[in-house]
């Protein structure tokens, strides 16, 4: 089976200086234009009226684009007969932990799920997972970024307490910026107050 891999195409004006290395393609998607913000032009209407030079209006130039495509062979490893991660009936299939409003404590109903993941990680020390912390839209965005991190950390702590190695769990907070359900009601808020356990593909 073939899989087409398309590389990121970046539109970058001539003068843009990127503050990062090429390792992180995601950052190259930023595009910038020159914007004039500091000029002021006033001259009094009286006897002599000195004219102020009108400074350049905005200019913008797009660079030619480059794209490249390449194809890769999909190397599918010969799968072990039973991978519990792929078993939809296993508790390992549950990877969402929900929280109460403005709280980061793990509710009792999710302790067993986390225990099962902790056991799996303890049995598979080569596996590294990512825990994402998310919030509903209530409260300020910056506060929620911190709250989302605290939720992710609460899951991380329980995982390590129950057997995972601390270097097997990475955490990241998305605050309220990546809602699962769009909307401004109780249902959306409930669904969005969550931590996600993400296994590598």
């Amino acid at each position, binding site marked *: 089976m073939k899989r087409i891999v*398309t590389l990121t*195409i970046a*539109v970058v*004006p001539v*003068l*843009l*200086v*990127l*503050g*990062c290395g090429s390792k*992180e393609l*995601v*950052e190259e*998607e*930023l*595009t*910038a*234009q*020159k*914007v*004039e*913000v*500091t*000029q*002021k*032009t*006033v*001259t*009094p*209407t*009286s006897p002599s*009226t000195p*004219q*102020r030079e*009108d400074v350049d*209006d*905005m200019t913008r130039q*797009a660079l030619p*684009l480059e*794209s490249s495509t390449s194809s890769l062979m999909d190397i599918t490893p010969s799968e072990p007969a039973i991978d519990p991660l792929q078993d939809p009936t296993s508790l390992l299939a549950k990877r969402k932990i929900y929280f109460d409003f*403005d709280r980061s404590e793990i509710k009792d109903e999710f302790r067993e799920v986390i225990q099962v993941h902790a056991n799996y990680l303890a049995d598979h020390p080569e596996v590294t997972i990512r825990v994402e912390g998310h919030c509903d*839209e*209530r*409260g*300020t*965005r*910056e*506060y929620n*970024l*911190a*709250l989302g*991190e*605290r939720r992710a950390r609460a899951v991380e702590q329980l995982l390590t307490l129950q057997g995972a190695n601390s270097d097997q769990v990475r955490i*990241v*907070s*998305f*605050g309220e*910026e*990546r809602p699962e359900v769009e909307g*401004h009601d109780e249902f959306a808020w409930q669904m969005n107050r969550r931590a996600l356990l993400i296994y590598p593909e």
Partner: protein
Amino acid sequence: MLRILILLISFFSFHNAATAALTIEITKGIDEALPIAVVPFGWTESSSLPQDIASIVAADLYRTGRFNPLPRKNMLATPSNVSDVNYQNWRVLDIPYVVIGSVVRQSNTQFVIKFRLIDVYREKQLAGFQYSASDKRMRKVAHEISDVIYEELTGEPGAFNTRIAYVQVLPASVKKRYRLTIADSDKENAMGILASRNPIMSPTWSPDNKKMAYVHLLPTGSRINIYDFERISNETVAKFEGINSAPTWSPDSKKLAMTLSRDGNAEIYIMDLSSRKLTRLTNRWAIDTEAAWAPDGKTLIYTSERGGTAQLYQYTFATKKVKRLTFEGKQNFRASFAPSGKMITFVHLTMESKYQIAVMELESGNMRILTESSLDESPSFAPNGSMIIYSTIYQGRGALSAVSFDGRVHNRFPIDGNSAEREPAWSSFLK
């Protein structure tokens, strides 16, 4: 190839969409608004004016809630020279102030714009200026004229010739759906400066208006970037382990206060931008974030939930003492200083669980709630302290609104196309 084309199209249409005409809706005004007539500017050519300066000025004045511009259809005459002004024409309409002006083409794209503010009862000119500008800068000249009129008649500087920044979020079908956009104070002339498929947050102008700090939320985590308007560069200044967020500038634009969790928990740090040296300010198990730097540089106000719920605290650099400022409602978040430094605006969570914009006088501690909806956020003062711009949810979408510092005047900015808009930040005065 098709892919490249689509990208190019979306890149350019993004700019075109931003120029669509907008009208600001004033949702609540004040009764004693001052009548004024802004007469259409004289223009001798047969083509229409590059910009209808008089209508931009009238809209600016109207939006403050302090002026009541006379509709054009009610004007008995439309003079553009002082010698043509018949004072009786305005007295019969009870109009105490008239603005007249003219535009003359100098070259293909260069124009001379003159205006005068006239006191009808004293039959006297109060102010008059002449500007030279290209067609593209005529809108800016209109805002400068509004500033002169506002200051002449209210005694306070106007803030029309200033800019706002905000985050625009396009529908999910658009690849680079997060836009950092800047616009004139009336939200016209909007232009995207950055586009990304990942969320952009917390834009904040440096006090010298030369740079903008913001948060870029990548799949791998958050980082703080600085966009430089003069060098047209974009630089990452903080990408530590954990969150990198809530940037706020020192009054001299040389330092950045920020929230980092590199030491395990969200704490406030100060970064010296030339040496990149970090100083840690808070040290708590609780969340400390959203610092705001006082205009005199002596204190910081930030959000902390050290007391169990989010409240505002003030840190004084000289004494290193911390004082809790807010006690009303359920929680209080994200303070922002008035330019005078005497007042702050912030997000107040009421006992009825509504997030509303409030102000507090720092000396007395008196607090007042200014808005009425339930998901209001990100308040930011105009540089003259008269209005506060903030984000709200209107018809299910993020939208920008403004309210006067005393809560008497409310207006709502229309949204561009089908985007959502949030996190507005008002610039300083343009020098």
